[in-house]
């Protein structure tokens, strides 16, 4: 398959040229044709994602004669460690995916490594394509200290929402329905457990997905203002709140009742997903990025729903946002072409390709495109549209401080392992947050 790919790309280019298929972003003037190589670092290393990138790149090359894309693919871990040094070099990547949050994008803005995209945003009308809530996730003040406002530094091609995947076969065989309230959801958990099936397939050995289990429930209890203030580090909120303690005690309650996979603390994220995909466990709580994996090589059918509201008077939020954005190196000599490339990455054509791969695009699909009714992709699409419409897009709380991820992972393992009470948990995390707020002034 890999060997066939260059051939496939050439055919694709030929088709494009012959049919004169105009790329959709032609409305804006394309920079003048000149010989140049654009170095692009991305982290779409999984096959499905990588194919989308290759297609987009070759279409971009075809539409911009003289421009060559030199693509470098890395895993996110690898990218995080190497990118900062590479962006300092005069021959570093012109375009790169820069993880959001303080320890990546924030630190790079502080070091003056990224180009502010405000002018390009006006030129290419990105502000019309993305809501302000989406743009703020890729924004920092010029000093890199305040997250969520100031300059725009990146545009994201994909969207993410954390919710509940369920095994349709298991649900149908037992007559279970997608719950519409949190009480129904908990009753469902009890019913599934009573049948001897694992209600929530889960593995916390890698640490980070425990943050999602906790925070998914936390998002039902707090207000959008609170979660924005917390993550953007403004208005002096605290982590040590009754809502966060309640979310932690719900987790401990689910542990006590055996709702998670037996021995979850010793199972990794990928392993737990493999088991879920093979039909073990009725549900799993994770992000829409898994959808692409769940439609290939399996005889099981999966659906997706948002965790239902716990309190009717509160906005039902879900963890979500946009994927890792593309940014431009400040010292790139091809900034205009790089911006044209960014625009290409968030074009309707890109949306179409991501959707075909089963992955949520951050921008709307081209007019007239249809989504298969009842498919897993349409479920995630509905979920994403719902929280956007209700202004209920939450946050990854591990972005909050540079050490928040490590603190949360360690403290949540203690919550799930029941060596710590919810009150001790929120107090320990608040200590991290207070130290950050004090130091960031």
């Amino acid at each position, binding site marked *: 398959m890999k060997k066939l790919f260059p051939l496939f790309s050439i055919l694709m280019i030929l088709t494009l040229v012959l049919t004169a298929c105009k790329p959709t972003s032609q409305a804006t003037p394309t920079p003048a044709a000149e010989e140049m190589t654009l170095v692009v670092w991305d982290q779409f290393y999984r096959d499905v994602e990588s194919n989308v990138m290759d297609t987009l790149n070759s279409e971009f090359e075809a539409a911009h004669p003289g421009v060559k894309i030199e693509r470098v693919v890395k895993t996110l871990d690898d990218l*995080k*460690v190497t990118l*900062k*040094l590479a*962006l*300092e070099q005069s021959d570093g990547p012109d375009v790169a995916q820069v993880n959001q949050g303080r*320890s990546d994008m924030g*630190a790079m803005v*502080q*070091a*003056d*490594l990224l180009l502010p995209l405000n002018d390009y945003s006006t030129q290419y009308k990105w502000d019309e394509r993305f809501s302000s809530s989406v743009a703020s996730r890729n924004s920092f003040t010029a000093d890199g200290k305040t997250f969520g406002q100031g300059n725009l530094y990146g545009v994201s091609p994909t969207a993410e929402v954390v919710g509940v995947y369920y095994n349709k076969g298991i649900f149908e065989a037992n007559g279970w329905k997608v719950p519409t309230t949190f009480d129904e959801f908990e009753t469902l958990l009890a019913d599934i457990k009573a049948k001897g099936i694992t209600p929530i397939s889960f593995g*916390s*050995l*890698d*640490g980070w997905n425990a943050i999602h289990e906790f925070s998914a429930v936390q998002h039902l209890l707090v207000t959008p203002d609170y979660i924005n203030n917390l993550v953007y580090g403004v208005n002096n909120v605290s982590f040590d709140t009754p809502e966060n303690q309640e979310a932690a005690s719900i987790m401990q309650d689910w542990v006590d009742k055996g709702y998670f*996979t*037996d*021995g*979850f*603390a*010793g*199972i*990794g994220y990928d*392993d737990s997903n493999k*088991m879920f995909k093979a039909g073990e466990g009725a549900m799993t709580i994770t992000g829409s990025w898994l959808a692409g994996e769940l439609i290939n090589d399996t005889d099981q059918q999966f659906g997706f729903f948002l965790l239902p509201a716990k309190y009717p008077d509160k906005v039902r939020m879900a963890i979500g946002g946009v994927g890792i954005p593309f940014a431009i190196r400040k010292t790139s000599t091809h900034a205009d072409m790089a911006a044209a490339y960014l625009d290409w990455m968030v074009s309707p054509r890109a949306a179409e390709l991501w959707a075909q791969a089963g992955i949520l695009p951050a921008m709307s699909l081209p007019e007239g495109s249809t989504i298969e009714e009842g498919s897993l992709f349409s479920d995630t699409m509905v979920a994403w549209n719902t929280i956007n419409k209700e202004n209920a897009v939450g946050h990854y709380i591990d972005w909050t401080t*540079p*050490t928040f*991820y*490590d603190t949360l*992972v*360690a*403290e949540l*393992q*203690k919550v799930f*392992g029941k*060596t710590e009470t919810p009150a001790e948990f929120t107090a320990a995390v608040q200590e991290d947050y207070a130290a950050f707020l004090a130091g960031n002034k």
Partner: protein
Amino acid sequence: MNVQHRWPGESRFHGWLYLLPGILIYLVFIFYPILETIRTSFYQWDGFSKNRIFIGFENYINLVGDSQFLLALFNNIKFIIFYTIIPIIIGLFLASLLGRKKLPGMTFFRAGLFLPQILSMVVVGVTWRWIFNPVFGPLNMGLRAIGLDALTHSWLGDFKLAFPSVGSIGTWVEYGFCMVLFLAGMQRISEDFYEAAQLDGANAFQQLIYITLPSLRPELGVALITTIIAALRVFDLVYVTTRGGPGESTLVTGFLVYRTAFLQNNIGYAAAVATVMTIVIFAIALIILRFQTSHQEEA
């Protein structure tokens, strides 16, 4: 008489020339980075921006009160039990089984038992992570197959068991190395000692204590130094299996350095941790070497 004093063989200049490639590699890839690390430890720096602030000993002062660092250091010291003490005991036991008599298939046993030592730690970690998997790992499946369901655990996720589980992987890696070292040493010991001891009525255990062990002092020294260093600088195994969890129960200084430097952008502080660990390791190695050479001089 005017005899020019000369060293035998080629001139000393030639000698240095032969050493040059090695010295260059050492200077560029080991000595210079160590100096840079020490220098960095006196700065507050994120590792890539231009604002590097000299803060003197502040990083070191903060280390003293950093509960995570102290916890990690204590875990490293606890790892010595699994990386050094248990492997040396197992190594001695196996060497005395394999060393004295010619056994059929001896080469097979020797190679097989040594094998873990030559595997990459990442491969070892990934394999053991699978073995310890509570649902489909061979360890729990085996226990269930023989009816010992009560003994199955979530090995790497259990607050009490994660540390000994990761530690026992270290034991599995190191014991073969100790065994081969001791086997080599035993070949040096003359059979006469054992015959004399047998005539005097010494049993196998007494022969081990009074003949084998004292004769193996140089090998014991090497085993101690290498395995203690391995215990103090463990990173890959923890990175692959538990990432320091659950909670902080398997957090070690090596992982702390990685996390602080590359994930939290605090290179200065990470360099201070690394420098302290380098000093600790140097000190321990020196003490063992001192101890060993002083005994050799006595003998």
